[in-house]
């Protein structure tokens, strides 16, 4: 008895007799199940570890009674709340107590998914074939033909057949133990108490998820005496909801309880990739370009052209040099196969606006990109475009230098078409003299630090970009 509070202070401030009697109707099955739970917790010696999750339904006030840690969940969500508790403190013994509306209707997704996870949690599921708290409406477990306030002519095929939760749970891989029990006579009550204890014990032993479905009496909404209700459960519910163990697959080994989380600063900085030396700097002050102290660059191409990666490398390079820089990608449907463009801003102190609707520099990997963004390049700007796929250059604003570089062809010749964005970076570097070459090469090496074997090819690709842009530039001037 010790797991019940001395006085139910939360029950209407324990006024009158409420301090020691439940809010349940006479003969209601809930009280019995509460007692079996309390006995099990006491016998297993886990009162100081247990957290009970109260549902929404008649048993919403479970927390009035059990002297354990208590949390009251939203309708149907008790398994989700239970999982949150179990993962917060894996040592805790978490009990999710739910009725049929709660578990088998509004909370189906939660119970199915948490059961399938298999984390050691014990669910006690009260099936009394009716909504109690809201006043006797049809439950998912209401029997065919049974009259309720929302099935006034009896449940029909149009309102579906009763939901067999224990069988459903047993069909999942997650649970280790599922049993359906009843309360209508002494023999079943002994079995019910045993099953509840087993479910909790399996959690104490950290074996896995268990669910015990209890066929319970709701005399009030069956409009019967408690004894008639017992009889009704036996005669009407039993044929639809056969009792017994539905699944007993208790593994030998225990569920691996996770270790406590780490708060070691060294591990945290390592995990987030903030360890190691800052990158080497090569710049002598902010780049001296005609574009001022806030440079806008746009890279545009098709989905697989690597515009985003190249843009990120530029951003990283600029930040390595101690400047502010941002990158924003276009994303969404057009980035999956269509145009993919990236805006990069590089500023001495602070990038004010990260977008580059009117870029100083445009890298175009295909004709549509050049056609779309070329006209918006600012006067005196530079366009680097892939001359291996773009035959004709649309009219560009006056004073914009267009630099043809066969990006794709060079990359193909190198044996890896995906390095064409690095060729483009080399060309961009040569055409703008944005940074010392080493700045960009450093950023490339940094990005490939996990795939060192690829560094030489990328360096070569960069070099070809520089070379082509240099000669194209000569031809231009």
């Amino acid at each position, binding site marked *: *008895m*010790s797991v019940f509070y001395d006085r139910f202070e939360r029950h209407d401030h324990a006024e009158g007799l409420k301090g*020691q*009697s439940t809010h349940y*109707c*006479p*003969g*209601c099955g809930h009280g019995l199940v509460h*007692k079996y739970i309390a006995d099990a917790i006491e016998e297993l010696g886990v*009162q*100081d*570890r*247990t*957290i009970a999750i*109260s549902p929404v339904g008649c048993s*919403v006030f479970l*927390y009035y009674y059990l*002297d354990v*840690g*208590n*949390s009251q*969940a*939203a309708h149907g969500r008790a398994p*989700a*709340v239970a999982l*949150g508790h179990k993962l*917060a403190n894996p040592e805790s*013994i978490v009990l999710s107590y739910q009725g049929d509306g709660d578990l088998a209707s509004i909370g189906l*997704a939660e119970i199915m998914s948490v059961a399938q996870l298999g984390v050691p949690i014990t669910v006690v599921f009260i099936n009394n074939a009716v909504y109690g708290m809201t006043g006797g409406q049809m439950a998912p477990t209401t029997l065919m033909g049974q009259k309720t306030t929302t099935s006034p002519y009896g449940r029909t095929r149009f309102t579906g057949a009763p939901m067999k939760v224990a069988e459903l749970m047993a069909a999942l891989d997650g649970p280790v133990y599922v049993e359906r029990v009843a309360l209508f006579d*002494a023999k079943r*009550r002994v079995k019910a108490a045993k099953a509840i204890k087993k479910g909790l014990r399996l959690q104490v032993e950290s074996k896995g998820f268990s669910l015990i479905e209890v066929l319970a009496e709701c005399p009030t909404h069956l409009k019967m005496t408690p*004894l008639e209700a*017992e009889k009704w459960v036996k005669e009407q519910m039993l044929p639809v909801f056969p009792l017994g163990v539905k699944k007993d697959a208790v593994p030998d080994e225990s569920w691996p309880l996770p270790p*406590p*989380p*780490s*708060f070691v*600063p*060294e*591990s945290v*900085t390592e995990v*987030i990739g*903030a360890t190691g*030396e*800052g990158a080497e700097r090569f710049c002598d002050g902010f780049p001296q370009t005609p574009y001022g102290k806030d440079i806008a660059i746009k890279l545009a191409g098709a989905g697989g052209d690597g515009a985003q990666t190249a843009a990120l490398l530029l*951003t*990283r390079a600029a*930040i390595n040099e101690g400047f*502010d*820089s*941002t*990158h*924003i*990608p276009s994303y*969404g449907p057009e980035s999956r196969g269509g145009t993919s463009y990236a805006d990069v801003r590089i500023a001495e102190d602070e990038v*004010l*606006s*990260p*977008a580059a*609707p009117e870029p100083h520099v445009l890298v175009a990997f295909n004709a549509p990109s050049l056609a779309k963004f070329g006209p918006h390049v600012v006067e005196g700007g530079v366009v680097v475009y892939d001359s291996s796929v773009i035959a004709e250059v649309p009219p560009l604003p006056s004073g914009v230098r267009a630099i043809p570089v066969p990006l794709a062809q060079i990359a193909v010749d190198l044996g890896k078409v995906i390095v064409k964005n690095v060729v483009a970076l080399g060309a961009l570097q040569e055409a703008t003299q944005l940074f010392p070459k080493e700045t960009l090469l450093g950023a490339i090496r940094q990005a490939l630090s996990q795939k060192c074997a690829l560094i030489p090819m990328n360096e070569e690709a960069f070099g070809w970009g520089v070379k082509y842009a240099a000669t194209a530039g000569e031809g231009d001037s």
Partner: protein
Amino acid sequence: MSVGKGSKSMPTTVERPKPFLLPQFCKGCGRCIESCAKHCIEPGTEVHPETGLIPVVFDLENCTACGLCMSACPEPYGLAPQPESTFELEDPATLFGPRPIPPEKPETIPDTRVPLGSARPLVVKGTYASAIGALLAGCRHFFGYPITPSTEGAELMAQLLPRLDGAFVQAVSEVATVNMMYGCGGAGLRAMTFTSSPGFSLMLEGISYMVGAEVPGVFVNVMRGGPGLGNIAPEQADIKLACRGLGHGNTHGIVLTPSTPQEMLDLTMLAFDLSFRYRNPVVVLCDGYLGQMTGKVTLPERMVAPGLPDWAVWGDRAHRRNLIVSIQLSEPDLEKHNEYLERKYAEMTANEQRADLFRCDDADVLVVACNTPARMAKGAVETLRGEGIKAGLFRPLTLWPFPVNQIEDLLPGAKRLVVVEASSGGQLEDELRLSLSKAGLAHPPIEHVRHSGGILPQAAEIVERVTASRAMRREKGVPA
């Protein structure tokens, strides 16, 4: 009076005790009657004056102390084994065997701030910066459901949390997500999620429960285009939800609005602090653009190793008497609770208003914007200044509470307010107007630059708006 001693059925031959009942705790259900094979129990005939119910009556002559009637009684303090010794009826608690020792009062284990050591700046996108901020704030529990454009944050958590022995759970839905956070936060730990507009809508019910039950948790909403499925491009159309509709009931929560990857980290860290300080969920509102925006992020000097609050339902002895609950059945109790929450909201409103002011000192055109549009606005302000127009950017970092204290001083100098935002109906403007009106502040005319559907206001448009209406005013002879 003492009972038991004089009872003719004191255990003699059997060791097991016979049943015993205090009639005021019998509901007269009769379940015990059926269970007794010896027919020792019968329906009563007298109404109990205290309960109005009719307790059963016993004749234990033939009782074998089988115990079956006791396990048939649904009442915790109903049928029970007879106590072995004498006891006082006036003290029914002693009737039912030894009582557990009540737990000692739990004490709050304070958070500690641990020096991070040497850490170099990161170059990361907004969602990553926020995830990293959460890790630095001591969050080791992530629950979420994938939704563009917030998913990268979740993906990074899935990658990093296992390496810090944290937990990453991909829930079955946003509804499950928020309730897992309710459990984890109720246990006193720092839980978070990344979501985007439709997902945020689904979480609102749970957020209301968290507010009611005073459960902390951090929600990063990377806003996208709506209504409905809308699109996955950036919008700011959940401001109304976060500031005015944080679930049903009398709810509020602090809403933070970062504009840069750096602020994604900083404000996510702050969100956890505020969430635990006030025992209330906190929303970090950003937009799809900011989530994707890569920039420089400098790490703070210290990270948080969280303690455990005294109110946590932790699942140990000390915290056993704690309860996380939002139901308050009695009307006066709920009103009292709501008044308490309102006092808490008032405290947040008084203490947590935050804004960033850019060239506002002498501004006569005050541009108001947050998130990515604030960056476009900043560019516009710079351009306007270049043209000799005294523009400034007022950038709320908290939308709820709206930083009305910070804007108040600027109003006398301002001739116009221009609200720049990515929502068609002007949700930021509504927050501004409501706050000014509540504070009883006179204000100059409010104009706006708005876009929606995933299109963001551009710097050039803002400049144009400001200069165009200036010219118009000049034409009309109104001082600009």
